């Protein structure tokens, strides 16, 4: 405390050595806000607080359900995290999901009704009454998943190339992609869902690997609905992706170069970082994540759906930013995004439990994301010593 004026030095020692209470509270609050686990603490506190009023939240069936809701959003948010780290933004992920979902349906569907699908421009060529291209083929699921991811990466490549080669702002490029590809997906199917996907595919969204039964073991046969999912296929997909993504960010040259680009692109360029290549690859990764998320969501819905990601944009960016990944670039972690997704999923769950209307829920979501952006700005201000960046 060198700033204490001389004439106060005769004051009792205790007040000089320990700062006053408000100051300590302020410091504690600041520390909490700057902590990387801030949002995890917040999630837990929020959930416990709300469950005092809605005890059903704590029931095992609800918890298990929430757990399965986390994975698809995490899958896609990891891609957004990568893009935000390099100080970009990918608004097109929702439309990538839509296109990929349609692609999946076109390959996998086992039978289609002429009266529903015959308006589609694909009817008669790729889609018939016998279903999609690989209807019934044993390798269909593998091909579909790979192709969905590849289409996502391809759209990411288009985004990335437009951004790096023509120096167009990411916001504009991906906004146009969003409009174009969602319209294209709807055009391809004339807004119909491509139904009848094989069970081996549905498993990726709905199937359990490990499930638990918490009731008494009265009968040898347990009803399917009473089983609680613990480890699902989508969990395995999302966690595997998360581990790979974490590894890329924290251990590889590529990851380091991403942070450098997000922090100061010019300095990175002069330091020999292949900025264009890295940026393009990151957008490809983001598209691929959207493709993978489309696998999980489509398998859950049991259909190739051309409007799949329509209302998801806010959730994706909201969850990522709430986790602490900065909109200004250079900062972000997979773990943070996991926390953000957990928070967002819990938030939606509690809002649903409160029986709010979809519009009210959207309003709350919007406010929460605004709050997250405010926290981001405030953190940055603390870190830059009071000046607004």
């Amino acid at each position, binding site marked *: 405390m060198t700033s204490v004026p001389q004439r106060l030095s005769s004051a009792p020692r205790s007040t000089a050595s320990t700062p006053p209470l408000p100051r300590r509270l302020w410091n504690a609050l600041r520390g909490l806000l700057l902590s990387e686990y801030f949002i995890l603490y917040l999630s837990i506190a929020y959930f416990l607080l709300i469950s005092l009023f809605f005890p059903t939240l704590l029931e095992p069936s609800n918890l298990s359900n929430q757990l399965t809701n986390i994975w698809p959003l995490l899958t896609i948010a990891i891609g957004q995290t990568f893009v935000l780290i390099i100080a970009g933004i990918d608004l097109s992920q929702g439309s990538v999901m839509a296109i990929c979902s349609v692609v999946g349906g076109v390959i996998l569907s086992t039978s289609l009704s002429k009266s529903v699908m015959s308006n589609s421009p694909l009817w008669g060529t790729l889609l018939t009454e016998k279903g999609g291209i690989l209807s019934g083929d044993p390798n269909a699921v593998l091909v579909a998943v790979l192709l969905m991811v590849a289409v996502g990466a391809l759209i990411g490549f288009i985004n990335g190339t437009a951004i790096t080669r023509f120096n167009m702002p990411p916001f504009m490029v991906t906004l146009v992609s969003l409009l174009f590809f969602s319209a294209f997906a709807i055009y391809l199917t004339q807004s119909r869902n491509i139904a009848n996907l094989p069970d081996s595919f549905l498993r990726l969204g709905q199937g359990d690997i490990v499930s638990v039964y918490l009731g008494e073991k009265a009968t040898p046969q347990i009803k399917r609905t009473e089983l609680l999912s613990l480890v699902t296929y989508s969990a395995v997909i999302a966690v595997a992706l998360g581990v790979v993504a974490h590894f890329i960010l924290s*251990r*590889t040259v590529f990851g380091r*170069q991403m942070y450098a680009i997000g922090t100061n692109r010019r*300095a990175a360029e002069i330091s020999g970082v292949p900025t264009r290549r890295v940026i393009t690859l990151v957008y490809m990764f983001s598209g691929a994540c959207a493709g993978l998320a489309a696998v999980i969501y489509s398998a859950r819905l049991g259909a190739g759906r051309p409007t799949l990601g329509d209302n998801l944009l806010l959730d994706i960016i909201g969850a990522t930013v709430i986790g602490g990944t900065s909109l200004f670039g250079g900062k972000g972690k997979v773990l943070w995004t996991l926390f953000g997704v957990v928070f967002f999923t819990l938030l939606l769950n509690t809002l649903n439990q409160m029986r709010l209307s979809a519009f009210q829920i959207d309003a709350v979501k919007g406010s929460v994301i605004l709050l997250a952006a405010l926290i981001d700005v405030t953190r940055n201000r603390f*870190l830059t010593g009071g000046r607004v960046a």
Partner: protein
Amino acid sequence: MTALLTLQSISKAFFGVYAVRDVTLNVPAGRILGLIGQNGAGKSTLMNLIGGVLAPDAGSMTFDGKPYVPRTPSDAVSAGIAFIHQELNLFTNLSIAENIFLGAFPQRRGFPFVGIDRAAMRRQSEALLEAVDLKVKPESPVEQLAPGERQLVEIAKALQLDARLIIFDEPTTSLTTRETRKLFEIMQRLRERGTTLIYISHILNDVLSLADEIAVMRDGELIAHAPRVEFDASRMISLMVGYSLDQLFPPRTSTPTQTPLLTLKGISQPGIVKDIGLTVNAGEVVGLFGLMGSGRTELARIIFGLDSFASGEIVIGGEVLRHTSVRESIRNRIAFVTENRREEGLLMTSAIAENIGLVSLPRYALPGVQVVDQPRLERAVGQAANQLQIKSGNIERQAAKALSGGNQQKVVIAKWLLSEPSLFIMDEPTRGIDVGAKYEIYSIINTLAAEGNGVLFISSEIEELMGMCDRIVVMSQGEIYGEFTRADFDKEAILRTAFREQATQKAGDHAADPA
């Protein structure tokens, strides 16, 4: 003679270093005062003090006999002081008339917000453009104008504000000879109307032909102020250079070899550099001196592969480079310490170690998926940090921006050391760092040279180049205009070359103007 603006013992220091020291100056009413001095002599700071951008630490000013204490630039404007800057402050997307009246649109009575009186604006604009002899329609957008015409719009804007003192800061840098001549005519016409002008320029002959009085600044102090007749070009240069400050430089311990590391042959890029020939040998420190805008930084960027060049050859280690890129330059063992640490040199918010490791990440990766060999990288980073004696906390955690300027510069150098370069391009490596840190940077440069590396040392401080270099190459207006070996280092001669003092052809061009 009456003074319009009087400065009384004005001082301004930044972090304890005086930028302007005890300056007392009378700006005579209705005259043109020429203000000259080297880069960093304090001219710009002085003008910022007059313009209300900075507040003086000590001293006072009077304007038109009344005390003048500008707190913001708009105080200066309302007092009647206008600036014409090197970089113009016009909105190129707006029309000439809108630019002239920006901030004071003529209003129609009774319509406080919507009632811009376009007719009055047009009428008055025409009159103002007439006064600066610019024959274009006030409605045309500024982006259609040539640089010289834009300058005239700036002057018209100053006239609209009824400026009684107009300060011209290097107004001719981007103008052609014809535009320059026209500008000077307008300036003389303004003087006849009774407007007072301060004219800052590096082109000494222009100052001699235009100014009524000349003031010379050096190291923040006003060292001469007298009527024009008492000056000639050589006296102006001697005054600007001075012989006071002798900095200490670490002694060179090695001598350069004759093995060329880098050879440039006829490098040209239209409008940027012209026919550049230059060699840097192993173990040699070559100084590149030039005034602002002489093309020295642009040349450095071309060598490093950041900008392209139209013709010429870059030869590195005996091999002609056809296509240059930053990564190729790094492979060819070139390092580039940029002029601008904050924007181009460092990841300010990242850890020191992160910064030092950045260039060489691929060198410290395991084969395959390019996983960073963290222990090996950390060792190398730590070694480089120690070698350059970077004073910091934990380099893995402390952010680069928490360091002093000198230590930040060492981080930039350390970053390049890891890529084991043999040629260092250093653009203003000691700018904005204190004397002690400068000495350390000089020592590092000497060590690099002693180890057989070549250094291309770009600076606008002649003294440091004279203290450090084996040779000094002088650039002026995109060309190499002279070269000095250590034996014939001479401050005045180097500065003369940079000012193109010998180029009497072009200088005489202006001097012959009828005053």
